[in-house]
């Protein structure tokens, strides 16, 4: 640091330009605080709890109404599908997987970013993530629930779906544990279960905080039950912290396992365009990419409408955008690698699917849009100004969100609609039931999310408090400087 002149030394008038540079450099070196405006622990609690305590704003009721209406579409469509048959979807002999699995992979992908933020960023001591991990984990749970709808109903006779569970049954049949589709059943259920547990553990201290402050009798009872009688004793905190660390490690392993298993649904088959070892990292980064986009879509309105800008700061949005950009670059790299391998392998079927049919075939438009949305548009995030303009970031990430859905569509439909034998080629066109079911899952997702922000603290109160400067016992309280980020001795 000896390069920088102390600020008390007056700037040399002959050297004004250089000192401006130095001032700018010093400004760059100052770490932004985790919570802006020097807010206190009490303020953090009051402010986050106020989201639950204050009467629901009008927009919340309107949003719930819309989301509920849309969610009921999914209910009606699924009921229609179960009572009629999977033929109400557009699948056919050529493309027997289409929107159902596309939607499944899309939603499960969104689920991955939540655990990525909560677990991997926790393990790597990215303490800024404490401001957004609760929101991200909730996103995970609801997205995995939406994802689970599709594989459950696409089996056709849903009432036999329980055959997938390894339980003794009257026919003495056991599942085939060598099948990637059964791995998928285990992966999705484990993912849902572990995500809920991880989320719940983080929720215990905050539920206790809500129990101790809320006036409403019914809600008080609700929080008292879910916090299990938490008192916040240091012995409890020691178990909590250690257990949270363990769960973060487990969840990290699980993110990798789940995207591996979901990608194995495809890569263990011999269909051109699916049969690639790159699918495992491909699905991993694709999932996190889509998930970060969805997280930005959720966070920008929440921080705006609930005035949480001091906790979910511009820096949080900035960092989410950077992750989006990073994952977008990974995805672009993998697209490129797929082309290269298709060309380099010399496999005619592989080359046909990847280098010809996807680009120039009947689904060229989805491919073009996928490329533009996933690889081109996120490049705007190289600009700091764009990353720090929340609503602009919100608008931008809508494109990769759609793009990631298109990616799964391209992978699934454009691979199987023309496979090895031209006589078995065909086309897939979605029916309106396809469209309405998928739209309906957005309703389910947003409805559950709206209920979550209404009844549970949307931000992890205790965790945000513990990253405040005043929470550090090794420095004098009250004195708050800006350059003290990252101290955890």
């Amino acid at each position, binding site marked *: 640091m000896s390069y920088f002149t102390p600020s008390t030394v007056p700037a040399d008038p002959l050297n004004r330009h250089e000192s401006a540079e130095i001032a700018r450099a010093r400004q760059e070196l100052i770490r932004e605080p985790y919570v802006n405006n020097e807010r206190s622990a009490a303020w953090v609690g009051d402010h986050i709890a106020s989201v639950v305590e204050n009467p629901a704003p009008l927009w919340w009721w309107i949003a719930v109404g819309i989301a509920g209406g849309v969610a009921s579409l999914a209910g009606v469509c699924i009921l229609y599908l179960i009572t009629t048959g999977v033929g109400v979807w557009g699948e056919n002999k050529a493309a027997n997987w289409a929107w159902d699995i596309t939607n499944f992979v899309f939603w499960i992908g969104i689920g991955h970013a939540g655990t990525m933020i909560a677990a991997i960023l926790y393990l790597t001591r990215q303490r800024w993530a404490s401001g957004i991990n609760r929101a991200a984990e909730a996103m995970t749970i609801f997205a995995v629930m939406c994802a689970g709808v599709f594989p459950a109903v696409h089996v056709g006779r849903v009432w036999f779906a329980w055959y997938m569970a390894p339980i003794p049954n009257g026919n003495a049949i056991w599942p085939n*544990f060598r099948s*990637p589709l059964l791995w998928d059943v285990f992966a999705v259920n484990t993912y849902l279960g572990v995500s809920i547990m991880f989320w719940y553990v983080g929720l215990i201290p905050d539920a206790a905080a809500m129990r101790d402050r809320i006036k409403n009798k019914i809600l008080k009872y609700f929080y008292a039950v879910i916090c299990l009688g938490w008192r916040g004793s240091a012995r409890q905190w020691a178990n909590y912290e250690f257990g949270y660390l363990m769960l973060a490690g487990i969840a990290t392993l699980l993110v990798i396992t789940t995207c591996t298993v979901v990608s194995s649904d495809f890569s263990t088959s011999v269909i051109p365009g699916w049969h690639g070892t790159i699918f495992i990292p491909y699905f991993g980064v694709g999932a996190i990419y889509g998930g970060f986009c969805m997280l930005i879509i959720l966070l920008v309105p929440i921080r705006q409408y609930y005035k949480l800008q001091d906790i979910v700061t511009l820096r949080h949005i900035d960092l989410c955008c950077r992750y989006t950009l990073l994952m977008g670059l990974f995805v672009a790299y993998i697209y490129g690698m797929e082309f290269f391998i298709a060309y380099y392998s010399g496999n005619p079927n592989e080359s046909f699917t990847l280098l010809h049919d996807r680009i120039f075939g009947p689904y060229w438009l989805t491919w073009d849009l996928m490329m533009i949305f996933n690889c081109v548009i996120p490049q705007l995030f190289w600009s700091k100004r764009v990353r720090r303009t929340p609503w602009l970031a919100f608008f931008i990430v809508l494109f990769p969100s759609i793009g990631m859905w298109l990616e799964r569509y391209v992978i699934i439909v454009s691979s199987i609609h023309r496979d090895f034998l031209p006589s078995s080629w065909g086309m897939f066109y979605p029916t309106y039931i396809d469209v309405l079911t998928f739209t309906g899952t957005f309703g389910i997702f947003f409805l559950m999310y709206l209920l979550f922000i209404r009844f549970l603290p949307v931000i992890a109160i205790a965790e945000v408090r513990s990253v405040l400067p005043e929470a550090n016992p090794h420095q004098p309280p009250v004195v708050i400087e800006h350059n003290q980020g990252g101290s955890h001795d």
Partner: protein
Amino acid sequence: MTDTPLVCSVGSGQMPKKLYAVAAEFANPTALYEAAEKVRDHGFRSWDCYTPYAIHGLDKAMGLKKSWVGVCTLVGGLHGLIGGFLLVTITSVYIYPMDTQGKPYFSLPAFVPILDLLTIMLAAIFTLKGIILLSGLPRLHHPLWEWDLFSRATHDKFFVVIEAKDPRFDEKATVDLLQEMGGTNLTFIGEE
């Protein structure tokens, strides 16, 4: 039942019939941390600090040993791994052998994802159980909840509570110790 209150501040009012602990409030994490070190050095065992959030290093200041939750995770993981292994092996090899694509009945590589996922699932369940049970939860009631001020232990207050069952506990000396360390709002907490 009785007229004696369960909570009374030190130096005023009637002592609770059966004393649970004496509690003191500290102004901030730094004061609490220093107090915790002193209480530890006095050799107390049945005592605790109450904070709205985890304070880094407080467990060391209190002389707490490493949490046992990690052991729970390991045990759960082993349950999942061994149980999963038995599940897939017994069903796929003995109970319901199924010839799929000429793979051997005992095809361990193809079982790995299932074993991995069951290990993760059971490890997570045991970790959650460990956190809850090792923390003495779930708990329907606690003597400290009789104290009105204690509801702010989850908000903005920091407390040290020394329990009466500790062999070194002495009504007078412990209160003096807490006062000396800068504790305020000293209170006797009773239990029924």
